[in-house]
């Protein structure tokens, strides 16, 4: 299905609700669309520019040394730290993950990064503590960290040794 079809349908429903004033489903579709638009506009442009700059400035050897084969626990520490300091939806982390992967970060560290990004972001934790309390947050975080580090290593073992992200992720060439 062409990507503009759901967008056109959503916009039409929203306009219909705005015109009729009494179409609740359409109003909620519009509200959801608005939230996603705000979230995307706040995070994605900056994220992609940073990934582009990372790509031209950071030498492959640096990433290989700190996050590559043999980086061990220190490598895990760095990717977790990097992820927790970020904010935004998980789909904003995929370009970063691929950029790290291409520069020689091990797949395990790439997936630990994605796990930490989705479960342990500090800006998100402040939200969580506010609405669910520090006890909930503390236990969930303490349980999530070892689980997602283990899953990162498991995932690396499951993928073929020569597995690489597709080149379509790279925009124009590499």
């Amino acid at each position: 299905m062409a990507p503009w079809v759901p967008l056109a349908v959503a916009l039409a429903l929203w306009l219909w609700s705005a015109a009729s004033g009494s179409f609740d489903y359409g109003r909620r579709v519009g509200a959801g669309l608005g939230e996603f638009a705000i979230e995307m506009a706040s995070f994605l442009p900056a994220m992609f520019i940073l990934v582009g700059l990372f790509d031209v400035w950071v030498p492959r050897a640096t990433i290989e040394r700190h996050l590559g084969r043999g980086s061990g626990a220190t490598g895990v520490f760095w990717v977790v730290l990097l992820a927790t300091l970020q904010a935004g939806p998980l789909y904003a982390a995929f370009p970063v993950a691929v950029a790290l992967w291409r520069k020689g970060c091990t797949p395990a560290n790439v997936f630990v990064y994605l796990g930490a990004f989705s479960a342990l972001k500090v800006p998100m934790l402040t939200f969580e503590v506010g609405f669910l309390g520090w006890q909930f947050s503390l236990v969930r975080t303490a349980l999530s960290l070892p689980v997602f580090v283990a899953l990162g290593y498991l995932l690396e073992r499951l993928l073929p040794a020569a597995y690489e992200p597709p080149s379509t992720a790279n925009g124009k060439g590499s």
Partner: protein
Amino acid sequence: MIVLGAVTLAALVLSLLADRRKTLAGVRKGVGMFVSILPALVGVLAGVSLLLAAVTPEMLRDLLGGSGPLPFVVALLVGSVALMPGFIAYPLAGVLRANGASDPVLAAFITTLMMVGVVTLPVEARFLGWRAALYRNGLAFAGAVVVALGMAAVLG
């Protein structure tokens, strides 16, 4: 978000001062990636908006507030399919808890919400490849079950 903007701006200025040509190449690359993924992403997000609007907070409250294993299973499934910004998800979790959802159920919901993205799979696959994307989502789902069971064991 303000921090991200400030960091990006600082990086951009530093990079421009150091090497203009390199900076342009980097920005062009970033913008190229953004533009190439944008249509797919917009389509997915519009689709999620259509889907989520059909589920009202009242429905979730009724489904997740009960006792027994059913709210747990529903939380895992809804969390896997749905996609919500954190500033929507946490207030909602607060409301769900006030209406009787237990902490393990909330942990299952939040963990799958953040880690598992069934509807964003096509976007994820463009970056990581189908195989890695499917494995990552499957394992993340299993991880969410482990975390939720751990929550039940610790918090009771």
